[in-house]
């Protein structure tokens, strides 16, 4: 079953703009991870944020985590056409090891 929900379901932006997507989850977590998927195939790991962390950066990516609201956001700055993909958040629960995925956000970056 899906642990989280992502918002929006789809996002279309101009190259150079920022893209923000949100993820909410239901149960307490050990960590939350963001993945990217191109063309419905393999998932590429982007970033992992632990439950005791509030913000993390990796290149043009910024992830925040609010455990009190059970939510996370992924910001992609200065987007490029190559960022066009589906983005998924996934959580690992406190007593778990398997990823529970959200439904994903489809991002289209227009040149």
């Amino acid at each position, binding site marked *: *079953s*899906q642990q989280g929900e992502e918002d929006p379901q789809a996002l279309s932006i101009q190259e150079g703009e920022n893209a923000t997507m949100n993820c909410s989850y239901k149960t307490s977590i*050990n*960590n939350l*991870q963001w*993945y990217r998927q191109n063309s*419905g*195939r*393999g*998932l*590429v*790991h982007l970033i*992992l944020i*632990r439950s005791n962390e509030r913000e993390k950066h990796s290149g043009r990516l910024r992830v925040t985590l609010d455990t009190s609201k059970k939510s996370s956001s992924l910001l992609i700055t200065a987007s490029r056409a190559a960022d066009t993909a589906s983005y*998924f958040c*996934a959580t*690992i*629960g*406190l*007593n*778990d*090891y*398997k*990823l*529970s*995925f*959200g*439904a*994903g956000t489809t991002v289209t970056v227009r040149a």
Partner: protein
Amino acid sequence: GAGVSQSPSNKVTEKGKDVELRCDPISGHTALYWYRQSLGQGLEFLIYFQGNSAPDKSGLPSDRFSAERTGGSVSTLTIQRTQQEDSAVYLCASSLAPTGYGSTDTQYFGPGTRLTVL
């Protein structure tokens, strides 16, 4: 180094036939996972192998699904008597260290096998 590999990349089969999907994890990774991605269900966990421990099969949708991992490396997911609802992309992932509860180890995914059941 090499990532997770899966074969075949695409498989088309007729309803009622058996299929085998293969996963080669990253060398040295002791944990291996199978997930399924389908239109109706999104991404869902199927099965987990960790070293020599008994696998966690809690995500397998029916007894037509089984998996094994030989020698702590290669894994095979078998679907017997395939049904149209089995059509999906089957994804394999592996992670480095023994992953107990509350794992923070990154799971690295393979490219997936797209299964189509006619």
